[in-house]
């Protein structure tokens, strides 16, 4: 009797709670097109995945300037983990108006309708590099404009290089030379190479060996190939022999930090390392060279992000104006200066090359760089691949690649 009454009570309680909650739904159940738009001065929230304090400050300054001229407010927040933060914000229907979207994550956002495809009709969209625009096209619609681009190159600490008795002639241009130079550095008790433990660094070796994780059209998993096995075996050899180390093994958050602290003589990082070194380790002397070529020639990876605008933003018009201002040729060059990325506009590229002769290696890399894997639902598969690469030192390279293929097939197929 009592139990029955208790159950009934619980049911009534639960029912009334559901009813109560239905009244106050915070979810925006309407489609993106009907989001109420507000004209006039806006209060833009901008979420960025900053490469460091240099970038944060540069974007904040530029936004502040835009705000004073436009009369709107613009608050730039650097995210610690933009994927997580954006995921919660989108599900909570409180997304920032403007945010960085990584090319590798782009398809996920576009496929669920979180992004406003503003770039189609944005004036001046022709100026952006075509291959970068391709990274932000989903089902033939260009969603957002690339904010900049960067490639991987080899950084060499010139002091440590000399200390190891090496000269300019020893700068490696092939895998064999990289190995032998590394051995000489190690003999002096210095860690030769710092390399990030993710697909975004190790993947460059695959390109140099003539392979890659996925097919050129991005629709098929192609990891388990002799070329890729060769590449991973080579990297594994470097790790096993202590010729290369992952950043964590050097108490560093990323390879640039280990390099900046002088814990490694070489690093494989992208353009962003320039700004970071300038800010955190201004005294380090280094030079930037193209990555050593593999059996199939030169290869590197390129990265790009775009300025995404939320489909649920109330201030789309103002957001587009903001993005236009952030991607003007002058502003892109200013960002380049501040944190080292390369402009994504054709009309800014030439000036960039003139202004930054030291970046020749990055610019050269852009010619033959491989873009990121860009398909929806691949994130957890790629994260699993990173896990495999973290354990590469003791793992079987072929097994790592096969596992990726298996997981990628079910994600790409489904």
């Amino acid at each position, binding site marked *: 009797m*009592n139990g029955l*009454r*208790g159950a009934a*009570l619980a049911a009534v309680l639960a029912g009334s709670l559901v009813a109560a909650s239905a009244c106050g739904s915070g*979810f925006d159940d309407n489609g993106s097109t009907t989001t109420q738009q507000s004209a006039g001065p806006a209060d833009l929230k901008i979420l960025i995945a900053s*490469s460091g304090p240099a970038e944060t400050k540069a974007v904040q300054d530029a936004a502040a300037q835009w705000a004073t001229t436009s009369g709107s407010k613009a608050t730039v927040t650097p*995210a610690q983990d933009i994927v997580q933060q954006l995921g919660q914000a989108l599900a909570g229907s409180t997304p920032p108006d403007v945010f960085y979207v990584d090319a590798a994550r782009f398809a996920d956002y576009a496929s669920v309708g979180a992004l406003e495809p503003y770039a189609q009709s944005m004036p001046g969209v022709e100026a952006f590099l075509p291959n970068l625009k391709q990274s932000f096209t989903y089902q033939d619609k260009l969603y957002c404009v690339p904010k900049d681009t960067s490639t991987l190159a080899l950084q060499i600490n010139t002091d440590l290089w000399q200390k190891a008795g090496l000269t300019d002639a020893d700068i490696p241009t092939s895998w064999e030379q990289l190995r032998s130079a590394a051995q000489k550095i190690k003999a002096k008790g210095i860690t030769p190479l710092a390399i990030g433990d993710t697909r975004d660094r190790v993947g460059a070796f695959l390109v140099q060996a003539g392979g890659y994780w996925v097919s050129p059209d991005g629709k098929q998993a192609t990891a388990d190939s002799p070329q890729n096995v060769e590449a991973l075996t080579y990297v594994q050899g470097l790790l096993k022999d202590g010729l290369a180390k992952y950043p964590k093994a050097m108490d560093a958050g990323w390879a640039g930090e280990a390099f900046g602290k002088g814990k490694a003589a070489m690093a494989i990082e992208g353009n962003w390392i320039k700004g970071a070194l300038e800010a955190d380790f201004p005294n380090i002397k280094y030079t930037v060279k193209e990555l050593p070529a593999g059996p199939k020639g030169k290869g590197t990876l390129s990265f790009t992000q775009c300025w995404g605008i939320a489909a649920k933003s109330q201030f789309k018009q103002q957001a587009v104006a903001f993005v236009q201002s952030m991607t003007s040729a002058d502003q892109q060059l200013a960002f380049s200066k501040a944190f080292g990325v390369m402009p994504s506009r054709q009309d800014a590229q030439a000036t960039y090359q003139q202004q930054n002769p030291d970046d020749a290696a990055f610019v050269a890399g852009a010619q033959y760089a491989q873009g990121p894997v860009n398909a929806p639902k691949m994130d957890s598969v790629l994260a699993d691949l990173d896990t495999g690469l973290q354990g590469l030192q003791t793992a079987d390279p072929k097994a790592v690649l096969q596992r990726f293929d298996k997981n990628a097939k079910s994600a790409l197929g489904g």
Partner: protein
Amino acid sequence: MIRTLASRFLGYAILIFFALVFLYPFVIQIANSFKTEANAAANPLSPIPSPFTDDSLTRIFEGTGFPTWLGNSVLVTVVVTVGRVLFGSMAGYALSRLQFRGRKALFAGLIAAMAVPPVVLLIPKFLVLNQLGLYNSYAGLIVPLLADATGVFVMKQFFDSVPVSVEEAARIDGAGVLRTFWSVVLPMAKPALITLTILMFTGSWNEFPHTLVAVQDPSLFTLPRGLADLVSGSLGSGTQYPLKLGAALLATIPVAIIFVVFQRYFVRDASAGADKG
């Protein structure tokens, strides 16, 4: 005689060893908060910073969101503690003393609620906060924490252990339930209330998972949330151990003070747990 001396000595040696194990990490934390980054990396064990610098403190207050987090933490902790103590003692009193329909079912529900592990509520809480439009607001940060099953349980157990006679006397004098509760019962329950207050203060000051799914705007972060973000650090910000240790230290100080001042209540509350099973 020699044997007892030796065993005494051994006993103290063990005690001192464990005291070091349990306290030295805090010494390291304090010392390294005032070291330069290079010194902290080179001599992590040394209890004396050389050179001494309060650079990390300056950076904590000027270069991070620490002041905001601190303010939010104070607000959340105060409101949540007051709420939990008040609602906990009200509900505990009702379940212990008042005769009303559904009391037994409610008590059974309470026991069930205590068994719900907080970590499985992460996604559920996020869903409900969204549905109610409370996500990413102070209300979302505070309201779900305002009542807590353990608090109700502790207070019910307390009232069960106190004789009814005083209240009955008050009632005979014609005081209503509310009046009796406010001016007779609560003053009498002072020791239990202090224990509960301390328990709830530390609990809400240290609360982390809830803030993870309730807010995402840095201006709404509490200390644990801000600290967690600081630690997972963005690319290029470096390890910055003195800064992180210093921030963690500052976040620990209020609890440490409360702990030292109200020690005996802490011990009581942990042993109260022993009777639960």
